[in-house]
């Protein structure tokens, strides 16, 4: 039975004195894809970057409210953010492979966790590359530097890298904004496949993409959650005028 794997309760975020998120209440069902849309500066990136606490790295960043992951507040003293990030994977806007071999990129997650068994790592490399449909393209060149791959391949490698350590939630911060349409289509297909095993939250500027890949859609505006609902509902009959104005392009 589907349950809320992740929930934010009155989440407020600040950079210095500037409030970016103004009390977001959102719940994410497991094994669903939720798209977060909204104009630039609406706080959608800040929102998903708060979920794996990667924003904690930014000085002056501050959070209020709760983020509940698997029934536990992620800011609880007992929660190790390093541990959290293993369970909540992330793929970023621009492909950011490490300047190392394809193999090492994926093996990194294991190395830092002290897993040295070559058999395990080999299997995971193959497995995750197969998941992202990159295996056939690179299986003979695993020692090649990842930066020599095309942009779309790099991004799929980043997906594979995140999947290798088997997270429960996958955060995607505009994963297709810097790559070509063919690769975008491949990644959208991938997201569809991954839904079976992961809970996915995707931030996107591309509304068609949100409509294509997601089950639920949340619309953010100026740090507030304006509307949340099933994607088909949002795109045929949004309830809020602001949502409608945004998705039909009448915004501003």
């Amino acid at each position: 039975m589907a349950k809320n794997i992740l929930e934010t309760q009155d989440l407020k975020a600040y950079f210095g004195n500037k409030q970016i998120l103004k009390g977001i209440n959102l719940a994410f069902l497991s094994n669903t894809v939720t798209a977060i849309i909204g104009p630039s500066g609406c706080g959608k990136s800040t929102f998903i970057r708060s979920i794996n606490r990667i924003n904690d790295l930014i000085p002056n960043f501050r959070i209020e409210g709760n983020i509940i992951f698997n029934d536990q507040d992620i800011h609880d003293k007992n929660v190790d953010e390093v541990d959290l990030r293993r369970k909540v994977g992330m793929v970023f806007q621009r492909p950011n492979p490490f300047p190392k071999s394809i193999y090492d990129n994926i093996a990194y997650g294991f190395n830092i966790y002290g897993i040295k068994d070559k058999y395990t790592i080999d299997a995971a490399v193959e497995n995750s590359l197969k998941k992202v449909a990159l295996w056939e393209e690179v299986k003979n060149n695993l020692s090649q530097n990842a930066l020599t791959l095309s942009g779309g391949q790099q991004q799929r490698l980043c997906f594979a890298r995140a999947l290798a350590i088997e997270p429960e939630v996958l955060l995607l911060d505009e994963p297709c904004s810097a790559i070509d349409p063919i690769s975008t289509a491949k990644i959208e297909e991938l997201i569809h496949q991954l839904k079976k095993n992961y809970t996915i939250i995707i931030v996107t500027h591309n509304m068609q993409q949100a409509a294509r890949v997601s089950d639920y859609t949340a619309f953010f505006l100026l740090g507030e959650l304006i509307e949340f609902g099933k994607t088909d509902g949002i795109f045929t009959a949004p309830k809020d005028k602001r949502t409608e104005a945004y998705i039909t392009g009448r915004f501003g």
Partner: protein
Amino acid sequence: MERHLDENLTELKTNLLNMGAMVQKCISDSIESLKTLDTSKAKEVIECDEKIDKCELKIDEQCLDLLVLKQPVAVDFRFVTMVMKITNDLERIADLAVDISERVLELSGKPHLKPLIDIPKLTVIAQKMLEDALTSFINQDAELAKEVILRDTEANHLRDLIQEELIKDFIVKDSNSVTRAIPLLLIARHLERICDHTTNIAEYIIYMVEAKIVKHRSSEL
């Protein structure tokens, strides 16, 4: 913000209203020809139908283009898809006007069985319903559309009256009157069908405006 899409939508709206006006004219012409038993007017209606068919095809094509090229969402999406359905019903209404005209041709050369009273009444209802439906489309007025839907029962009732009268007073009593009574019976039916299609249009308009599906649930209105 001004959008290029708005231009397309306005054009679509204008085309649909033109089509609506043509359909309205077909209805009034066919009824006019019935009243005067003027065959030339009835023929005009039949010719006009061809134009309306072409118009339907053109509007449908425009809608398909918009869907694939502009990928409209929300209110725009509802507008385009509902326009497609409205043209379909409008075309059917035009077909019914043609049917009426064909009945008029069958009746030509013979005097009316009796002075026409209820059929013009039904015609007025049908014409008013279509006019209001088109007005509610222009103004995106869901309330007016709801009134249109409610008026359909009145039309049904009137058709039943006409049917009953024609059967009881003429067909049953005088078998000679059958050839003149049956076309009238059918015309009443056609008019009532026009009201049904208009009801459909009104339902589409309500979905277009309020994103509420009222079809097959008119009791909820």
